[in-house]
């Protein structure tokens, strides 16, 4: 019955398991990259301007915010959670930042305002989920309404126009180095940071553990509460930062900023191969997922595909992505099972 000395030939021969795992991970990333490449090549062949500096810059602009929020969402989803309130959080932060700036607050301070607001929203979510023992879906569905309501209260019908914002801020929002927008650079850096946090730091690994087997996490004495709070606050803070970037990019901010964004973000994360039930997935995958969705929505008009088709295609793609993920997962599981078993 044992996989040990008695039958060395049948042991899960070194590497099998891990290579199988790597294969899945690599495959996911690979799949996404292939899809991306294919899409870009096709689009470019139809309309070369799609690869023009301007067009690429636009694409990265559009991707910046989504990537950022996808990173935050990943952190929460890994813990078996979800944050449906990111759209509202982004709206709140964007509006607060913009008003702060328009009333002459120095940019760095406004930046803190935005991120702080986001973090606060995240803390609220985390508290409701951890201390209130409210399922994340319910809690954040509730705060989705509440936060949006707060934005309406503060903003009302008013709108902050580009002309009210400091030039420097807007230039930063539309500026780029070597064709890469500052905004995207920021998102990319944050993404990298989160990736390192999740893969190379104990706190990060704990998040995977929590999502993978909460009961075991309790037995191992992992600080579940602190970790959950970290996850939600981080997610909120990134949504807050997203709000700042949003303000920088669009210049005009009104109460509807980020309305209905949450499901796209969840979609991006799912497409990126993060398991909706926690424990597995990488922030890089989520980033790629976000990028892919952005490229699609930018490419479809260029491909002269009727804009009314775009949403449908995105939906179909999500289904395809999770179905593929499942397929690969099953394959790997069967492989592992056969290797692990002692019964020839």
């Amino acid at each position, binding site marked *: 019955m044992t996989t040990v000395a008695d039958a060395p030939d049948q042991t899960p021969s070194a590497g099998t398991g891990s290579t199988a795992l790597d294969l899945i991970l690599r495959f996911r990333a690979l799949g996404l990259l292939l899809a991306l490449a294919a899409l870009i090549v096709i689009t470019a062949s139809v309309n070369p301007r799609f690869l023009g500096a301007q067009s690429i810059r636009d694409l990265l602009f559009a991707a910046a915010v989504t990537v950022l929020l996808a990173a935050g969402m990943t952190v929460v989803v890994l813990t078996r959670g979800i944050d449906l309130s990111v759209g509202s959080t982004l709206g709140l932060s964007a509006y607060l930042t913009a008003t702060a700036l328009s009333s002459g607050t120095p940019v760095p301070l406004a930046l803190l305002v935005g991120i702080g607001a986001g973090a606060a929203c995240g803390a609220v979510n985390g508290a409701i989920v951890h201390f209130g023992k409210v399922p994340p879906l319910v809690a954040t569905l509730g705060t989705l309404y509440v936060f949006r309501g707060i934005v309406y209260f503060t903003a009302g019908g008013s709108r902050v*126009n580009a002309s009210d914002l400091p030039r420097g801020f807007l230039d930063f929002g539309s500026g780029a180095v070597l064709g890469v927008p500052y905004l995207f650079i920021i998102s990319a850096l944050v993404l990298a940071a989160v990736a390192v946090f999740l893969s190379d730091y104990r706190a990060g690994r704990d998040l995977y553990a929590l999502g993978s087997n909460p009961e075991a996490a309790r037995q191992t004495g992992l600080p579940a509460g602190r970790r959950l709070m970290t996850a939600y606050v981080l997610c909120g803070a990134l949504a807050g930062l997203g709000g700042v970037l949003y303000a920088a990019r669009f210049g005009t901010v009104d109460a509807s900023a980020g309305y209905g964004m949450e499901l796209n973000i969840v979609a991006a994360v799912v497409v990126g191969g993060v398991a909706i039930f926690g424990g597995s997935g990488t922030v890089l995958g989520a980033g790629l997922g976000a990028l892919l969705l952005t490229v699609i929505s930018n490419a479809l008009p260029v491909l002269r595909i009727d804009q009314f088709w775009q949403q449908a295609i995105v939906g179909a793609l999500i289904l395809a992505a999770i179905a593929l993920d499942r397929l690969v997962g099953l394959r790997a599981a069967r492989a592992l099972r056969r290797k692990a078993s002692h019964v020839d």
Partner: protein
Amino acid sequence: ATACGGTTQGDDDDGGGAATGGTADPDADYQTGLSIAMLPKSVNNPYFDASSAGAEAVVTELEGTYEYTGPSDASASSQVSYIDTLSQQASDAILLSANDPNALCASLDQARAGGTIVVTFDSDVEASCRDLFVSQVNGDEVALSLLEMAAEQTGGAGEIAVLSATANATNQNAWIEAMEAELESNPDYADLELVDVVYGDDEDEKSFSETQGLLQTHPDLKAIISPTTVGIAAAARYLSGSEYQGEVALTGLGTPNQMREYIADGTVTEFALWDPTALGELAAYTAAAAASGIITGAEGEVFTAGDLGEYTVEADGIVTLGPPTRFNADNIDDFDF
């Protein structure tokens, strides 16, 4: 057809008006103490805030009670609930900018049956469902001046495209139709080609990326016409930050406050708009007039709208504010809305 948002068999049996019945008494005075409510496409929209300011001023002047209420999302179904509420509160008049030409009719009929005067402004419903419609401008006039400006800025030749609001917006579609007709018929515009119509849904972000799409799909695009305040602002911001600045002309309908900087930096030469505040005022006066029995909505009736002057009710119970104002570097600083 488009006037009914694309429906194929619209029925405009009774040409608006008469619904209130009774006969008009041109010499009557405006009643005081009227309760008038404005129901915009959605609250949180600066354009309607401006109109509301105008209407409120009028109502207070007439010693009436004024309310500004509406949904936060620009959808017909949520407007219905607000209409029902208002009709139960038995408001004397509703000033409505409709999200859908037909979806609201049932509730409007109920409201009017309860004696509430329904005056639409900015965006109309089926003529049979309201008493009067206060049109910002005569639709054709808008189309004409938009094309004029586009022609001037492109030298009368090249590809042009339209960045519209939501795909169902009655007024937008009417204007686009008029433009197409004019392009067909008018020899001066022979060299202008309308290559595309895209919809920004009056959302800043969507308008912004739709502009991107336009410029990529149509390399030779000469001008963009955006007959919506949200759209033109977003497009202008995109152009001002892109390599197309100054290459591609942009005109349309926008508010001076939003467009000021783009006039300044040369992204935009000239655009037009009526004064939404004045529109709100006129709507309020029209409603008050109807509620006071000064007019019934029948063609040819005349009433005085305070400082705005004298207005005549046209066919289908339409009252028109007047030709749009054009804004450019010379005059833009005279306006603040």
